[in-house]
């Protein structure tokens, strides 16, 4: 094994992770969650066209490869005059994806809160929105941490697709080094190890958050 290559590539690979993969993941996840909540609420709305629209969006986002979504946003939109730089394009595509997947998670989590909690909120005098915000969502959050962290982990790996639209991140760096050295196996495994480390950190964070949110739940 070419240890020199392994070591000399650590710098650029981590650089790609820290300057590309990680900020891209964080920004897209944050925006994606907001979008997911809106989509979930729209999907549960009693306004039929709104619900149908949300369904359609979720279905297209989940049903088509993200690579194509990236292509359409970055290379397709200019044909209607919308020219977005790489980073905004990537963040939009990634957060739409998070939105599509997480919307279903959030919807299920909201539905998992017993109906009695809505009623308790109303009875205390809260409006629908206040009950949602102060009673339902905090409880839904607990249920949705594990599936959302799945979404997050998938997202981290999906950021590698942003390389196709000129964003330099971990995977792109790996490709460059691999192309130069033709040692693609070695470099890809090294990159995978870095992805793994990022995901382990995420899992640890997930554990912490779950524990925090579990403080008000009886344990078996």
């Amino acid at each position, binding site marked *: 094994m070419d240890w020199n290559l392994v070591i000399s590539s650590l710098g650029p690979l981590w650089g790609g992770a820290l300057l590309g993969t990680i900020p891209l993941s964080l920004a897209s996840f944050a925006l994606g969650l907001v979008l997911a909540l809106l989509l979930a609420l729209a999907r549960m709305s009693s306004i039929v066209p709104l619900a149908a629209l949300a369904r359609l969006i979720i279905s297209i986002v989940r049903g088509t490869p993200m690579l194509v979504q990236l292509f359409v946003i970055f290379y397709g939109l200019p044909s209607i005059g919308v020219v977005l730089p790489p980073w905004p394009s990537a963040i939009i595509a990634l957060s739409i994806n998070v939105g599509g997947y997480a919307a279903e998670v959030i919807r299920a989590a909201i539905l998992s809160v*017993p109906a009695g909690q809505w009623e308790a909120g109303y*009875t205390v*005098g809260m409006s629908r929105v206040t009950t949602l915000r102060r009673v339902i969502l*905090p409880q839904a959050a607990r249920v949705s941490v594990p599936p959302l962290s799945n979404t997050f982990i998938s997202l981290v790996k999906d950021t590698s697709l942003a390389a196709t639209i000129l964003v330099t991140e971990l995977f792109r760096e790996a490709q460059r080094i691999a192309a130069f050295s033709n040692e693609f196996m070695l470099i890809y495994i090294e990159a995978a190890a870095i992805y793994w480390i990022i995901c382990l950190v995420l899992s640890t964070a997930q554990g912490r958050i779950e524990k925090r949110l579990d*403080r008000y739940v009886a344990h078996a």
Partner: protein
Amino acid sequence: MSPTPESASAPLLRTTGLRKSFGSLEVLKGIDLAVPRGRVLVLIGPSGSGKTTVLRSLNALEVPDAGVIELEGEALDFAAPASKKERQRQRETLRDASGMVFQHYNLFPHRTVLQNVTEGPIVVQGRPRAEAEAEATSLLERVGLGDKRDVYPFQLSGGQQQRVGIVRALALKPKLLLFDEPTSALDPEIVGDVLTIMKQLAEEGWTMVVVTHELGFAREVADEVLFLDGGVIVERGAPQQLLRDPRQPRTRAFLDRLLRPLD
């Protein structure tokens, strides 16, 4: 119509011809009742007879299909078609006036006992936190939960949770307290703790509508007992009369089953 001979003034709440269907199932078939200020009304009746639906209508958790609910003289008409905004106003009127205690407590599991109680006063009524907390604390002390202020509901027994449920309703200072089988999810030996507190509230002059199977409580505390069956008030009267010597055979059969299950 109103069975409140001793009250001269208008009742706090009165319903006339309340009807409600779920799909093709008619659950309330015209309910007339009146709750004078400071009195306790007890609803009894078999499962599915519509007791919960009556309470939920009074708390605007259900919108009746027809009938009028009169609250302190203001009539809310549910037969007339109403705008969304009008329905909203009706809902708020009823909800502001009443507090509800549920069979399964429905405490907010993610909030401490104190937060459960102050959520309404602070968030909805906009009262100052310090004031709301002081008041909540003294209410909690009254029901013997002064030391449980800062624990979460799951750390409480069923009876303690139900006492928090009652305090949460009281903290809103409603004109009317609604109880839906508040003790039927409790261990039998703990039932007494909750009933005792309800009895004290009645003695203090709170106006209450209580759905319960605890006939002892009804006998001691109720001013009037209503027997519901099939969405209709079959019989109503003072507890001594209705519980001991019902006029209607359906009432008698129901009470017999309850009192002597093995016969």
